[in-house]
């Protein structure tokens, strides 16, 4: 059973990922012949039905692509439409967007660390099982997550699919008194986030190093979240307006997701490890110190350590939210008027799981004539499949159930959001 030279390992429904996917591994003559992440999340055709909608509608509509990172969709959509219309929001509105986005980073990273990923390292089926032995740990994670969600709720109106975001800014800017109670909660959250870094830094990380090019927004002077230009670890740099010249997508048979590659360069990875590697100098001193104590160096190329990077980024997001609240003054107007004009616009922001590109074309009446959305998981899929091939090749002597569990853990390293990628996973290892 464990030493057959031909086999098929098949994980038909991956657990603790967002959305539905499968993994198939085919082994022939004792070697990995093929690894496929299958995205069977059904297609929902967002880019098709966005056509004919008003230029004001994509933030609310594209939020529905993903219940875990709706703010990312709203922010990339606003950026792209404002680019098409030649509008630039004032710094106070941009700061409020960054504050909202910090809330999403806190809740999404904490969800992934505590509820999706940590149980793998500790040998539990899920966080609710972990809570039976270590209720204190899970309660800490839930408290931290709640603070992130509450921040999204105060600024955005609702934790999932916020209602307060619009092209040009917000419907209503929060009053300083709305934010004041959050500041105390965020002080407590900072201690919880630092404790989280120390906790995950003690996990047992298998040796694994990838050599993929990594891509993220950079925003010199600060850690990129809601704005920036594109940079890679291979030295490529381009403006968001040129992303289509560099990011090319292809449709592969086993997936309702499109695979992205860098033109002339190939597969690449986006996400927390890419951001950390490209922008760690812009982390706050406390977050940098926490990263160093947790053993992160100048770059992060072991996907297992992405959980540490998420924890470090959570520290940063909490501190950044406190900083933004401390200097907050309500903008004179919560939004600027964005009259439509014919043309195309592009926007990119850093979703918790990586760079999210949007492009819209508008007609003179302000109706969307075409839309293109390139989510992080579609960008990562080729690199993840490549890593899984190497990972499985080193573990072919494991029995199927053990190999399956370890493959699932490896996949969760990349925090795939399958709902987003549909345009993602079930593990099937074919050992012949």
């Amino acid at each position: 059973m464990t030493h057959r030279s031909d086999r098929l390992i098949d994980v038909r429904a991956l657990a603790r990922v967002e959305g539905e996917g499968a993994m198939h591994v085919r082994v022939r003559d004792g070697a990995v012949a093929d690894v496929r992440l299958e995205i069977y999340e059904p297609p929902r055709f967002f880019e098709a039905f966005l056509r004919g909608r008003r230029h004001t509608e994509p933030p609310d509509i594209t939020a529905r692509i993903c219940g875990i990172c709706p703010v990312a969709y709203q922010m990339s959509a606003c950026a792209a439409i404002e680019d098409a219309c030649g509008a630039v929001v004032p710094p106070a509105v941009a700061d409020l967007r960054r504050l909202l986005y910090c809330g999403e980073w806190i809740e999404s990273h904490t969800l992934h660390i505590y509820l999706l990923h940590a149980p793998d390292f500790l040998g539990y089926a899920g966080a609710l099982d972990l809570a039976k032995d270590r209720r204190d740990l899970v309660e800490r994670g839930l408290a931290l997550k709640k603070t992130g969600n509450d921040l999204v709720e105060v600024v955005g109106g609702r934790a999932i699919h916020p209602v307060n975001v619009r092209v040009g800014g917000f419907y209503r800017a929060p009053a300083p008194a709305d934010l004041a109670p959050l500041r105390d909660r965020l002080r407590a959250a900072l201690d919880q986030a630092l404790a989280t870094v120390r906790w995950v830094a003690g996990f047992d990380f298998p040796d694994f190093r990838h050599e993929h090019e990594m891509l993220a927004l950079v925003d010199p002077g600060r850690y990129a979240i809601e704005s920036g230009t594109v940079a890679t670890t291979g030295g490529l740099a381009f403006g968001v307006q040129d992303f289509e010249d560099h990011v090319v997508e292809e449709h592969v048979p086993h997936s309702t997701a499109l695979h992205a590659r860098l033109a002339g360069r190939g597969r690449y990875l986006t996400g927390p490890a890419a951001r950390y590697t490209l922008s760690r100098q812009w982390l706050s001193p406390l977050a940098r110190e926490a990263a160093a104590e947790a053993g992160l160096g100048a770059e992060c190329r072991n996907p297992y350590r992405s959980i540490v990077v998420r924890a470090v980024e959570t520290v940063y997001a909490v501190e950044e939210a406190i900083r933004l609240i401390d200097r907050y003054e309500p903008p004179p107007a919560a939004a600027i008027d964005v009259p439509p004009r014919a043309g195309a616009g592009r926007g990119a922001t850093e979703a918790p799981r990586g760079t999210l590109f949007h492009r819209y074309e508008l007609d003179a009446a302000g109706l969307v004539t075409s839309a293109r959305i390139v989510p992080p998981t579609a960008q990562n899929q080729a690199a993840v499949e490549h890593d899984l091939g190497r990972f499985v090749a080193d573990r072919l002597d494991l029995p199927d159930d053990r190999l399956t569990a370890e493959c699932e853990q490896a996949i969760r390293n990349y925090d795939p959001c399958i709902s987003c990628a549909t345009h993602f996973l079930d593990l099937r290892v074919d050992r012949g």
Partner: protein
Amino acid sequence: MTTLAVWKFASCDGCQLSLLDCEDELLAVAGRVRIAHFLEASRAVLPGPYDVSLVEGSITTPADAERIHAIRDASRVLITLGACATAGGIQALRNSADVAEYASAVYARPDYLDTLATSTPIAAHVDVDYELHGCPIDKGQLLETITALLAGRKPNLPAHSVCFDCKRRNNVCVVVARGEPCLGPVTRAGCGAICPAFGRGCFGCFGPAETPNGPAEADLLRAAGMSEDDIRRLYRTFTVSAFAEVAGDAS
């Protein structure tokens, strides 16, 4: 102990995430039910039958149209969660479009896809015991429903309009005060009237209230300056099929 299963069809994961977002109550709930199938939270899966199944998402593929029957057969009480499961969701915009053209607009190789021409609610396929509306659902309503079922009573789920909750919240009416278009008069309550609280008109993400007055709402939207196309777009978003009758079109 009551067994609880969570199932996903075409959706964004946001409604099942609402359960994980009950940070203050999650561990207490987990202490009262046996979570038998909840892939977003655990890789441990127990075989059915299940006392309560929570179903998120709409039916959009031939395989899912089969799978929902197996879930119904294995479930004592089946509750649908959110706009996708109760009304087909935003992806039901395909129902009045050419789905082959939609597929070719998004995918280079539409022939790789296996999709139905329609996105339909769960109740179009199997009997549903309770429906929680909203895009996303309100987590308070989810907790009320789970609590009620554990106590052996019916959940208290309002069918009145957003207007009632808006008044109760002491919001300034965005229609009266600012002439904003608002679907509050015809939309089911449950969200807490958050859009008017943030100074925008309701966009109907909970679907229609029990007795909506479509013609009066149309007059109100026109008076707010909306064109017929704008009114059509407003109704044709998150619960397009549920609002068809209120909107007065055949979509």
